[in-house]
């Protein structure tokens, strides 16, 4: 029998402890990969999503809040701009295109965003424009809505369905508007935050029954594409010299700052995942080490049959590595389950789409690290096995 067959027999003989230990390795490996991938993909996606715009104009306040509100459809609006301000922005020769949005209503937690139809002419990603999959684009003059694919799926809406929005960004069933909207279209999935938005004409949101008539023409933000490299100049002009509006630019950098702020939390998460990996490796050590007493006779028999000390040492190290390898392979299953849940939740809450199947370096180094830790953990029981006295242990343990 080869060394490998002896190792496999031993794993089979201790099937229960092998299974339990391998499962703990799988959890650790899966967790390690998930933490790394969620963190990396979230950063990449959040800093990579700009919905095709270079910057956002909004009321004086936090740039981050402005971006989260207008691009990611999270957070509350920092305030409003008047329609005149929007027109001034749109007329600025440095602005290639400007799309005003208005927020303030929802349907069962899914945000209604009032927008002009020019949004649908913007490339949110190179060569990609928002498109209607079923039905047609809303008529700006009518109470019609185009629904993001994820929102439509969750709300089980189809073209022709009607709904009455609720006031505010947080769902409160006591604050329903009397206005009735018809779903005119369902959008193609874009894998952006737009997928969880219910888009309606901006005038519809501004004039929703119950809204303040004095602010009926206000907008929450203006999304802009710039002409050339005028961003720096506008930043200087609007943010540093002016005190009326905020110009959030560049969007990726603002989101990057958010991730830099939460970097210590990420580090703690990573440290916890690494500790879990170490604990799992420790479980291999404990599991095999504890079985050494009952295996002394088995080892003595193998030695009596001619196995060298080094062979016994190698068998135990390989056994530990085998458990780690089983766990590392099963870890991909754990990773997929964790990531599927995490991706679903993140998509539901933010519209950001994580791809569990996208290959990442951690998918190579985490299983290899678990394998290495497993082999290292095997060294201690292997040393104990190495020292087993043959003559003393050949008789049965009574």
């Amino acid at each position, binding site marked *: 029998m080869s060394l490998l067959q002896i190792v496999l*027999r031993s794993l089979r003989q201790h099937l229960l402890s092998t299974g339990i230990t391998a499962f703990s390795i799988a959890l650790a490996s899966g967790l390690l990969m998930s933490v790394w991938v969620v963190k990396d993909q979230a950063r990449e996606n959040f800093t990579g999503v700009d919905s095709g715009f270079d910057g956002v104009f909004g009321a004086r306040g936090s740039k981050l809040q402005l971006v989260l509100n207008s691009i990611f459809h999270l957070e509350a609006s920092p305030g409003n701009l008047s329609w005149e301000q929007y027109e001034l922005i749109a007329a600025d020769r440095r602005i290639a295109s400007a799309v005003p949005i208005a927020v303030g209503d929802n349907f069962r937690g899914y945000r209604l965003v009032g927008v002009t139809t020019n949004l649908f002419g913007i490339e949110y990603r190179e060569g990609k424009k928002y498109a209607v999959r079923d039905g047609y684009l809303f008529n700006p003059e009518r109470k019609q809505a185009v629904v993001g694919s994820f929102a439509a799926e969750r709300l089980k809406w189809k073209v022709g369905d009607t709904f009455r929005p609720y006031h505010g960004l947080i769902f409160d069933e006591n604050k329903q508007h009397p206005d009735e909207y018809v779903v005119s279209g369902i959008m193609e999935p874009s894998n952006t935050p737009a997928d969880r938005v219910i888009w309606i004409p901006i005038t519809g949101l501004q004039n929703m029954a119950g809204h303040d008539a004095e602010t009926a023409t206000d907008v929450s933000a203006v999304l802009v594409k710039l002409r050339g490299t005028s961003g720096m100049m506008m930043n200087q002009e609007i943010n540093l010299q002016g005190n009326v509006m905020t110009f959030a630019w560049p969007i990726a950098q603002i989101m990057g700052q958010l991730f830099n702020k939460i970097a210590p939390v990420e580090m703690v998460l990573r440290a916890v995942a690494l500790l879990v990996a170490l604990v799992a490796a420790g479980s291999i050590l404990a599991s095999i080490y504890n079985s050494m007493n009952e295996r002394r006779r088995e080892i003595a028999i193998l030695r009596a*049959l001619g196995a060298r000390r080094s062979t016994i040492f190698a068998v135990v190290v390989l056994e530990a590595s085998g458990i780690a390898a089983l766990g590392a392979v099963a870890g991909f299953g754990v990773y997929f389950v964790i990531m599927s849940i995490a991706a679903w939740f993140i998509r539901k809450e933010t519209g950001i789409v994580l791809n569990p199947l996208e290959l990442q370096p951690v998918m190579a180094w985490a299983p290899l690290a678990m394998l290495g830790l497993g082999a290292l953990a095997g060294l201690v029981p292997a040393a104990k096995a190495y020292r087993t006295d043959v*003559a003393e242990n050949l008789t049965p343990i009574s």
Partner: protein
Amino acid sequence: MLLTIENLRKSYGTPDGSVQAVVDVPVFSLDTAQQTALCGTSGSGKTTFLNLIAGILKPDAGRIELDGCAISDASEAGRDRLRARTIGYIFQTFNLLQGYTCIENVLLGMSFGPGADRRRARGLLERVGLGQRLDHFPRQLSTGQQQRVAVARALANRPKLVLADEPTGNLDPASAAESLGLIHETCLENGAALLLVSHDREVLGQFDNVRDLAEINRAAACPSAGEARS
């Protein structure tokens, strides 16, 4: 000569700090394919003697030469190699690995020596009457059947010398006689010498060449010799 032993000594420390000789054999030899029984009572140092020949223990002094190799001078790895290639060992308690099937136990007997040969393993098990039990685990066999697996395993590496330590000690008289016959025959068929130790007169009676361990082992002649080790 297959096996020659000269001035072999092995002692152990006792709890009171003194050193007690367990084996003190001035001279002993065994010819190729010879079958010899050693008569030894409990505490006569017979297991230690066999373990020294097998290279499991290293002597304090003296020389053991097996098939032209000085096993007493060899390193531990060298002794392991020699044991794996030259010696078959049948234990009183059989020492089968419980997690391995019959055929796997026999294959193990070859693994550290000439290499696993499934056909030979199957042939040996068929020879000892266990052709239908190849994939049974030891716990699924009777005591006599386990003994037969141990015999097959001892012969698996085509040994030149089979050591048997009270091989029938755990068997009823009928099974013991049958098993002993099997050991005799299979050793002869495989050209292996047999050195068996026992205190059972029935067993010893089946050998032409029987020697008293107390005559060979001077330490065994001493009343207290090897009480701690059988």
